[in-house]
């Protein structure tokens, strides 16, 4: 987990704790899932670029 992702998740969790409304908490939990998925997709995309750029076929 990157520093940015960790910081964002912590911020969201702090906000979830502060909310009594189920709707607000649900949206924030949805946001947390989205941040994690976004980070995963960013990692996968970076890895794909690395993989394709370093293809031995191009050496």
């Amino acid at each position: 987990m990157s520093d940015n992702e960790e910081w964002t998740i912590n911020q969201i969790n702090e906000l979830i704790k502060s909310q009594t409304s189920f709707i607000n908490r649900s949206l924030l939990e949805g946001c947390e899932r989205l941040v994690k998925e976004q980070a995963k997709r960013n990692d996968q995309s970076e890895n794909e670029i690395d993989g394709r750029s370093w293809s031995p076929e191009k050496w």
Partner: protein
Amino acid sequence: MKTLIIVSHPEFQDSITQAFLKTSQAELNDVTWHCLDEIYGSDPIDVQAERELLNGADRIIFQFPLYWYSAPASLKIWEDDVLSRAYTYANEEGHLKDKEVGIVTSVGYPKSAFAAGASQSFSISQIMIPYEALAKQAGMKFMKPLVIAQFGYSTDEEKSQLLVDYQMYLTAKYPFSFNERETWMIHQLKKLASGSMKNHQQELDLIIQELETGQDDLNDLKEQINLIRNKEED
């Protein structure tokens, strides 16, 4: 975008699923909750009033518990009365043409039961074919149904996820690509920041900024990957 939810449920007052969904959509703008059994009971349907509601909507949702692999009787009566051939057919008056139609259905079995070889034998896509056929005839865009399985057994976490999925189903741009889900969530956070969570506006703004940066980064990466792929194909 305006969304009309047509609810069909003979015991709507006692349904915990419908109560949950009603609360989940209550604060959304441009969403109309329209429960047929509550409005009409055993009275005849006001066809003109129903058509006016339909004409004003961009997305129409049929929402019902699955009774014998179909909707309860009130929705079928509504369809037979309101959706006359001339009003509905895309190649006649075509009043519903280019609108979107979605299904929100609750079932008493796990989702995995709706498959060939499983206890219910047929998939939800197969069971929903009459609605898909209707959509096709009317020139409407049919949305992938949102299935709520065994709501009574749901954990708080599952209910929390259902609330977000349901709100998105009602208001996000279809199809729900990841980019669209990001944009939708950013919009919801902005609404919270200027509404019921105004006292946390600063924290929310920073989260929004992070989400927007992540979205831009991901779109840039996708573009780079496409460029590389295209070069590889040359």
